[in-house]
């Protein structure tokens, strides 16, 4: 395991109480693989991602029992200086609408070199420039042109590729991609996924996608975790999970996505509303919206149950759900 979350709990403290954004997550990201965390708005996916680099806002309170183990080390114990080194060098992040994160007054070259200068003890200009050019080439930009460009001279897709190159500058082992293509057009999006696929194959870097867009990650992800209201509902190998989702929520989510393939089948939205994160429903947080809910679901919280073949689901009625999903 590259990263292991152990009972991760993060609350946002607001006047009305504690918003339980991440509510007891235990789950691992396999080394050298692509893992995707899927969740809708309010599921806590971005908070979880930020917790790895400890970039959460000050009112986010991480519970004392929580641990995030990275290469055997608990990230939550690191000092401020240690975590600063950890960012970029060990783990880098490409975040939402990152294409707007470039400094508009600086050439791409200077931004890339500054990043390296900040983190490397022995900075060598020539070597750094070579590295920057190589990475820009890897994201299929023409280094000669991109290096001397200002951000506004590049398209949104190009800027996002620069950001990806930048994330790879210090050879991190772990790359977090938080909605990396959300603001981009579908053609650019597809191109960037091609690129990320290629990068993964070439560098073998561990990738951790955080997204609401199920279809976008289906191509790359080896493993998938489905997040709802701060809890992991289902995990497993992506092909199996996408084809036969077991948890009623994953089933609902996947069947709510319209497609351009095959015959037009009618789709169904999941009834009801996402829960209030301050006063969560008792038992399984999904039970008020669930088509299989029965008494026990509102009384006890289901643990992640091993269903075999590397698949886990947090549902008491997973066997019924599986049957219903297959039929």
């Amino acid at each position: 395991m590259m990263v292991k979350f152990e009972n991760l709990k993060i609350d946002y403290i607001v006047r009305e109480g504690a918003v339980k954004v991440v509510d007891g997550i235990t789950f691992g990201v396999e080394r050298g693989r692509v893992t995707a965390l899927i969740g809708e708005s309010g599921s806590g996916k971005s908070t979880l991602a930020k917790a790895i680099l400890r970039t959460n806002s000050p009112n986010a309170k991480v519970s004392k029992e929580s641990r995030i183990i990275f290469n055997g080390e608990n990230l939550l114990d690191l000092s401020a200086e240690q975590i600063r080194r950890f960012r970029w060098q060990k783990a880098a992040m490409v975040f939402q609408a990152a294409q707007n994160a470039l400094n508009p007054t600086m050439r791409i070259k200077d931004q890339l070199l500054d990043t390296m200068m900040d983190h490397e003890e022995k900075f060598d200009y020539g070597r750094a420039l070579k590295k920057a050019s190589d990475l820009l080439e890897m994201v299929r930009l023409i280094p000669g042109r991109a290096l001397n460009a200002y951000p506004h001279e590049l398209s949104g897709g190009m800027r996002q590729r620069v950001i990806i190159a930048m994330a790879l500058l210090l050879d991190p082992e772990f790359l977090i991609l938080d909605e990396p293509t959300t603001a981009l057009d579908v053609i650019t999006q597809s191109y960037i996924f091609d690129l990320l696929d290629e990068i993964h194959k070439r560098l073998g870097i561990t990738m951790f996608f955080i997204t609401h867009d199920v279809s976008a990650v289906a191509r790359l992800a080896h493993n998938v975790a489905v997040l709802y209201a701060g809890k992991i509902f289902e995990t497993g190998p992506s092909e199996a999970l996408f084809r036969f989702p077991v948890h009623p929520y994953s089933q609902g989510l996947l069947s709510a996505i319209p497609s351009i393939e095959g015959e037009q089948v009618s789709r169904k939205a999941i009834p009801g509303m996402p829960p209030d994160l301050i006063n969560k429903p008792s038992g399984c947080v999904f039970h008020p919206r669930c088509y299989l809910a029965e008494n026990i679901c509102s009384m006890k919280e289901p643990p992640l149950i091993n269903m075999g073949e590397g698949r886990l689901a947090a549902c008491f009625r997973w066997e019924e759900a599986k049957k219903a999903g297959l039929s």
Partner: protein
Amino acid sequence: MFQVGRGEEGGPVMTPIIELAHVCMEFAVPGGKKVCAARDVSLEINKGEVVAVVGESGCGKSTIGKICLGVQKPTAGEVLIDGKPVWGRGLKMDHKTRMAVQVVHQDSYVSLNPVKTLYQTLSAPFRYYKISKGEADTEKKVIDLLNSVGLNPPEYFIGKYPFQLSGGQRQRVSIARATILDPKVIIADEPVSGVDASLKISILDLMRRLNEEKGIAFLYITHDLATARYFGREGRMVVMYLGSIVEQGGINELIFGPAHPYLEALLHAIPSPDPKKSKEKTGIPLKNLEMPDPAEPPTGCLFHPRCPYAEKICETGRPVLESMESDPAHLAACHFKGKFRR
């Protein structure tokens, strides 16, 4: 491909609700250049019809919406609502015609007044046009309205402010507001792109219901072909690129038999939720990934610098939007119309 029924040829001639005839829209951009957000666009929306306008950002689809709404005046061409010119000289459009076209915006947060409760927002048109008689009647009408868009129980929602609602609920309020004045057509500009996946369908279903039950026509502007197909069903689709319509026809005909290389590329780029199918979808059939500078559009076919099938003629001659031989309702602006040299 399966057959879908569309308006019969030679049927009774009806006045379209909205008709755009050779509409052009130019914007001046810094540097003294001009950008064409609409080039010679002709489009009609008939009674009870769903027309999906698809394309990437900057293709001019939102401009078409604004022109249909009458909030933007085209630099050339004519806009008719119910057969009456919107921008006729000295002719002011009467309220009734104007009100026939309503809007649902993309961002439900900025499309609702942040300091007003749902009741204040939704009751205003009733009072303004004296549709309701007295406060009690207004309240009843607002409650009915909230019911009709699935905001249950209405009493719970009536005093809420926009920020207290989820994106999906706010979008329902926007839709409710758009229906108050009994419009003939609603221009919906990316109405579900800010809504969570599991709730998108329910918003589309709601619009579908309004289309079927009340006969409201929709101009559905989107970048998402899958929702266009889901919502549009047997409707028409218009594909735009750099301000021009490049392809037009029945939604399923277009999705399963694209005649323009641009639509082909667009369809190829759409990810599939099925990992197996998705893995096959690598490499986009495009020569160049980047959209050309809209201030300096290419000569000839607007798409030729990116088109993998482009030939000599594409660099010089701009293709016109014409019917396919096989299907007169299917139009494409391409010299080859599906018969490329691959």
